């Protein structure tokens, strides 16, 4: 943490995926439905989660590190899931 940096609110976007090899029943059902709708070119579907965190931090890296801690402690079950974190310095979604 560098001195003099101002705390601001960052947005961390967390994507949670089911690991390869973990049965994704939702993904399978969605795939069947899409194929029934005529999307024969569809190869596979995996359904995951999107979590948006607003974090007060000194800089982007610090915000990302906190988001990672939150993933490990609660948001992600690492036996069955993997995650990616993207941090931006503004709100995301419809309001931005």
């Amino acid at each position, binding site marked *: 943490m560098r001195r003099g940096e101002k705390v601001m609110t960052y947005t961390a976007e967390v994507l949670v995926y089911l690991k390869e090899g*973990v*049965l994704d*029943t*939702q993904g399978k*059902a969605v795939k069947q439905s899409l194929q029934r709708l005529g999307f024969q070119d569809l190869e596979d579907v995996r359904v995951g989660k999107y979590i948006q965190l607003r974090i007060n931090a000194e800089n982007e890296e610090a915000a990302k590190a906190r988001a990672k801690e939150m993933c490990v402690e*609660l*948001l992600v*079950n690492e036996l*069955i899931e993997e995650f990616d974190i993207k941090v931006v310095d503004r709100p995301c979604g419809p309001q931005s």
Partner: protein
Amino acid sequence: MRAAVVVFPGSNCDRDVIHALRTTVSADTETLWYESSDLPKNIDLIVLPGGFSYGDYLRCGAMAARTPVMKAVRRFAEKGGLVLGICNGFQVLTESRLLPGAILANQSLTFICRSCTVRVERTDTPFTLGCRENQVLEMPIAHHEGLYFLPDEEISRLKKEKRVVFRYCGPDGELDDSHNPNGSLDNIAGIVNERGNVMGLMPHPERASEKILGSDDGTLIWNSLRIWLEKGGR
């Protein structure tokens, strides 16, 4: 027997468990609020009941597993205390890593609420010592997430260590896909930890603890615990 039944926000089988424990084995039973970090003195058994703790948000049992009471439950289990997780309670035990694995959505993607039969795979645990080897018990299941999952290499270890206590089966104990209600790996319905003092299962013994409910096979579990404790099990 002195038992405590944990109540999380969204638990809904706590009273049934208390009723079953009191009526079948005259257990001295009290409730334990999820915010408390101390356990009542001299308890023999903690039950994590079924229900929808925290609305099943994020992952079933995930938030309940990180409440203050679960820290106390972990200490209790580490000292050899008996812990039983039923349905959502089983999910809380896997989420808190007191038991291995994860419990995923049923293969059918539907909520399944019906009676089922399970085969007793071990009779040397505190929870099943009153059962016969391969005895078939009838108990209801009621869940949307009941598919027991473990990565390949870990499931073979679990089986080698004989940690599977109940398997879904047919009326005569036959193990096949047609008698696997939720797609659980290897028909697994209940497991224990290495030491054998923590068990989780998806079927509800408390809903099968008197004949008028259609089955009283669940009493075998309460009675096993009673016998174990009378023999000075811990």
